């Protein structure tokens, strides 16, 4: 008999539900009296009316409407439970002209996906959310939903929802109405023909907003689930009109569709020229790194308080080594004291591929403060060198290690720039570090460091030289 039935489907439905298959390929999988079928039909009709079928992508959620893609003739993405607004965000950002319809039930939208729901609304994503509220989890067998009414019996509230244990129904329209970005928020009902007419108008408005790329629209539908709620047609109509509406009043919360401006996003630029420009890539950065197994690798550790320019001095040293054609690595160790405590970094300079970038036994230790001396001085290799800020006070190095106090802070203060102590120390390292790097590489590295503040270059070169002189 099914084969002979002539289904006069709405425009925008597939004529045969091939993805569904089975014995009745022109019938939906929804129970008699379910609100999903009604809403599907309205969405499909409206999509065709507005001429936006090709642009539409519908998110099928987890819940009874997981198979919305059986029916509505547009692009479809099936989503994880609660994640539809995030997935729609991804599609919308990737494809500016796509019209995203996120179709979600109460458990999906207001429970497991509440964060995604609120945040997508708050960003004002170009998405229309159709929220089907029937007060229960349908597909999993009628458990309590976030919108279950107080006293309502479900599979997991056998004695009725008790707010002392399970809280109160969540009001999604009211909650979202506290946010600035949404363009349109309305609650309608699918309980009877009069309500369905109004619901149709809300669907139209929400999709017009997407057509015109104006932003976020949210429509909540109080929807019948007679099977799970064990009601007949009259009973479920009464339940929605009297009990649900008392808790969830029908209302247009806002409509800013007239004043909202369209959101247009730029097209992605894939050209190499634009990339090279963005990253500042230029042929002049080309350096020939020379393999030279004769070069004895040098490990340098630089340590001090945060704010003393420890990491940036390390970077300048790495630049100097790189400009000199050496293999080089720089690695920061924030340690547990990252915030406001000491920080240090390791620089390895080599004539070959570098193994570990972490320097445990430095050839040279640069210490900007006393704690750094206390912590790392004993790690320095025999025959190695310690450069430390003279302000750290008297210090006796371990046997076989040379230690030189550098008046780095004093030099910097003398030039009126306290934060340039690391430049003075860099000069001392250039002079006494024995790192096998030419002096001009240090100057060039400083120029690179201050490339964006060229006014500071002459002064820093001066401080570099003063630092070098101080240990000569």
């Amino acid at each position: 008999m099914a084969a002979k039935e002539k289904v006069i489907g709405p425009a925008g439905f597939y004529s045969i539900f091939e993805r569904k298959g089975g014995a009745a390929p022109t019938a939906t999988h929804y129970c008699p009296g379910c609100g999903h079928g009604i809403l599907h039909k309205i969405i499909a009709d409206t999509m065709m009316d507005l001429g936006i079928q090709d642009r539409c992508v519908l998110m099928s959620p987890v819940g009874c409407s997981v198979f919305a893609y059986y029916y509505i003739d547009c692009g479809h993405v099936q989503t994880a439970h609660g994640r539809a607004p995030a997935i729609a965000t991804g599609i919308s950002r990737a494809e500016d002209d796509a019209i995203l319809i996120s179709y979600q039930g109460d458990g999906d939208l207001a429970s497991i996906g509440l964060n995604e729901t609120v945040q997508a609304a708050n960003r004002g994503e170009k998405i229309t959310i159709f929220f089907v509220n029937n007060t229960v989890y349908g597909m999993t067998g009628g458990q309590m939903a976030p919108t279950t009414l107080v006293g309502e019996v479900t599979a997991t509230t056998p004695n009725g929802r008790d707010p002392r244990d399970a809280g109160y129904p969540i009001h999604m329209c009211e909650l979202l109405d506290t946010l600035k970005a949404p363009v349109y928020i309305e609650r309608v009902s699918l309980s009877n023909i009069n309500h369905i007419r109004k619901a149709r108008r809300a669907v139209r408005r929400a999709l017009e907003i997407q057509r015109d790329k104006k932003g976020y629209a949210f429509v909540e539908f109080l929807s019948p689930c007679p099977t799970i709620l064990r009601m007949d047609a009259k009973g479920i109509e009464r339940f929605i009109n009297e009990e649900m509406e008392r808790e969830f009043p029908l209302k247009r919360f806002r409509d800013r569709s007239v004043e909202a401006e369209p959101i247009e996003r730029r097209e992605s630029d894939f050209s190499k020229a634009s990339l090279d420009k963005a990253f500042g890539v230029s042929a002049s950065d080309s350096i020939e790194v020379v393999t030279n197994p004769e070069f004895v690798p040098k490990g340098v550790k630089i340590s001090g308080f945060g704010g003393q320019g420890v990491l940036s001095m390390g970077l300048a040293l790495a630049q100097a080594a790189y400009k000199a054609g050496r293999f080089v690595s720089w690695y920061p160790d924030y340690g547990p004291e990252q915030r406001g405590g000491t920080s240090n970094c390791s620089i390895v300079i080599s004539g070959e591929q570098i193994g570990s970038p972490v320097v445990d036994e430095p050839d040279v230790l640069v210490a900007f403060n006393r704690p750094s001396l206390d912590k790392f001085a004993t790690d320095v290799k025999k025959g190695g060198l310690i450069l430390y800020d003279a302000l750290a006070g008297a210090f006796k190095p371990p046997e076989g290690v040379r230690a030189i106090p550098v008046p780095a802070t004093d030099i910097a203060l003398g030039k009126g720039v306290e934060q340039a102590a690391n430049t003075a120390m860099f000069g001392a390292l250039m002079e006494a570090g024995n790192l096998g790097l030419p002096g001009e590489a240090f100057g060039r590295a400083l120029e690179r460091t201050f490339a964006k503040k060229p006014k500071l270059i002459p002064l820093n070169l001066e401080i570099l030289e003063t630092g070098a002189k101080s240990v000569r």
Partner: protein
Amino acid sequence: MPAQLVEGNSAVIVGAMYAGCDCFFGYPITPASEILQEASKYFPMIGRKFVQAESEEAAINMVYGAAAAGHRVLAASSGPGMSLKQEGISYIAGAELPCVIVDIVRAGPGLGNIGPEQSDYNQAVKGGGHGSYKNIVLAPNSVQEMCDFTIKAFDLAFKYRNPVVILADGVLGHMIEPLEFPKTAIEHHIDTSWAVAGNEATMKNLVTSIALDFNELEQHNVKLQAKYDRIQENEVEREEYRTEDADVILVSYGISSRIANSAVDAARKEGIKAGLFRPITLFPFPWDELKALADRGCSFISVEMSNGQMRDDIRLATGCKDVALVSRYGGNLIERDQILDMIREVA
């Protein structure tokens, strides 16, 4: 070649953008946050799309969305964030969507700390989420490879329509080395045969991972396994160093492989014939290549900052139960001499 000193995390963004990736969705987490920050700086500069998501779950689902639309999309995180992303990765694998996910592994379990470890090996290599799926997993060991492997990862992701994980660690993420910039920039075009991009060419398509019919879902799984077999057949990559005559083989990936490399040189100076076998693809794992060395009678040492997670695979590959392990935990790097001691013991 034009080169600059670049941080490992930044190199990922360089690679992704030259590879034609035009969407990034992420959430802050140390030690991967620089990837997010660099994306926020460079993506919008040339019209590419960036969103700081509200959560790791939202971020991976935005990735799912942009991937479903056929775009090249990147995600990045670290241990705890990767755990949260597993739901989304399972859906991406199930729906056969291409994307690249970078894991800058930190020390665990739980909140652990922000130091480096390699303890996400099993999570990345064996699937990680629910269901019988696999990620392609690439293991860089330098800043240059952080860039180059990201480019390679996009090619593999689209060749097989499969998630690809770049398994790095806190050291590779934060260290700075010279980076040669890519010579070409890829302009990606959407494959209208499967993508859902909100246009006429793709409106007949469906992206989904649900199949209620048992046989249908079984067939889908069989198809996925056949894909993984093809990947195993065609995409294995590894690097060998002084293994030709080696008696003792270190097996190591990522930052640990560089320290192992130094240990090989040190052992050779002592006259011990040591070599390094470095898997570059962790799935597909180089089973046959390791087996060939085992057949020669080599001894094996797994060098990894985790509890022998890779050693299990070395045991399976070589048939040797007796594979030694050199490891550190908690953010500590393996030291060269620690490896050298074990080489002496095994040799």
